[in-house]
């Protein structure tokens, strides 16, 4: 039988991979992808705990759904921002967008 820590470790792995992506990728969209991965890792954790600790209450699922909503909103705004940024800078590479630089 699968024990809880498997899920947690997988989630942790997914999370750090996403984190790495967020921190290392140049392309803004890729950064957003990393964020999505991290969010999914979180969701896995939520659901795993729900399943193993309180399967009778819909708490975990409710949380997961809220996370979905947040992710969707974030992606929508983020992508719109990228479009706008691309119009301005002709690029979505995070390094090129450094007006706040010394």
């Amino acid at each position: 039988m699968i024990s809880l820590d498997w899920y947690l470790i997988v989630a942790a792995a997914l999370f750090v991979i996403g984190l790495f992506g967020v921190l290392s990728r140049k392309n803004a969209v890729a950064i957003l992808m990393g964020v999505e991965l991290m969010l999914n890792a979180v969701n896995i954790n939520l659901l795993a705990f729900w399943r193993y600790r309180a399967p009778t209450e819909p708490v975990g699922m409710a949380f997961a759904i809220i996370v979905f909503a947040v992710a969707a909103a974030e992606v929508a705004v983020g992508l719109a921002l990228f479009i706008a940024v691309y119009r301005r800078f002709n690029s979505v590479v995070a390094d090129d967008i450094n007006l706040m630089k010394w």
Partner: protein
Amino acid sequence: MGILSQPIGVIAEWLRNLFLGWGLSEGLTTVLLYLIGAGVLATLVQVWVIFLIWFERKIIGRFQDRLGPNRVGPYGLLQPFADLIKIITKEVIIPREADKAVYLLGPIIMDAGVLAIWAVIPLMPMVGMDLNVAALYTIAVGAFATLGILMSGWASNNKFALLSAFRTVAQMVSYEVPTVLALLIPVLLAGTMSLQGIVEAQHVWYIVFAPLAFLIYFIASVAEVGRTPFDLLEAESEIVAGFHIEYSGMVFAIFYVGDFLHAFTIGALGAVLFLGGWRGPGAETYPLLGLLYLWIKAFLVYFLVVWARGTLPRVRIDQMMDFSWKFLTPLALILLVVAAVLDHFVMGFGVWGRALSHFAANVVIAVLTLRYLDHQDKVRESKRKMVAQPGQYPVARPPVPVETSTEAAS
């Protein structure tokens, strides 16, 4: 447990015993059975497409006052086989600079998406994967079709293909919304998301309950399939053949099959959701009858699709988007709310009372909608008289092709 009462069940039982007899483990047997079932289903429906192709060509021919295929075999019944042989023997061309893996994955994913819908369609009583979120599932896997088209359109490294891909995405993403909303109405009425449950709940077909919902579902899914009048993704006159411009041979055939199958799948889904699925006299006792009924109903809807294709011209892209966001979606929302509220009150009226009150509500909404529409027409007319100049109509920006996006930016 006769072959007539439970055909699939009997076969499955026999196979299980056979495998166990070979000494395979329990779990492995189950997995194998699932695989076999899936394989059989997928194969059958795809083979069935061969007949669909003949059927559609025939009907369209009649619509266009032609005979349609009539040489090969009786009534040209064997025509599709000829085409099949031809297309199989053709070479599969993969353009240079194309993204090979994605290029090849595209059609497969699309076809898989369509096939995956069949997994949850209740062919007959007690048959079919009774998933408790089946209704949503159909939408979910519908997304894969979009994905496939997008992939192939991009991977072809062809500007027309890419344009078509963009259009596809825009079209499907925007038409998914009314589809889901319309599809939620049967779910609401039946109180479950499992298609089997929905079918069993339809003592009165839901088309009586919600004709408008059926209409919306029909239109929206036709758009999702991308058939006329919504076939902008392969508008020959604008973008030569759209996303499958580069494809040829077997790979193209997969697209072809997927397309037809998707259309028929819509028919099947519509039958299940609104036309009582396998319901019919004696279906419970002789499930095969149910399969027959379902097939007939599916054909009906499919015929409607073909009919539309044969008669309606193609819409403009901005008209299409407007139609989804400014008309279908609000209307579907209104219907959903009205149905929910009304159902709460007419729960106790008995089946027919409930059905008729819902029907009445639909009629009222329909009348109001029509009044609103021609009011809009009048307004637009007066505007046109007032100022006759271009730019008066809302022209959505066409999806920016890759090359020109830089100019758009600068």
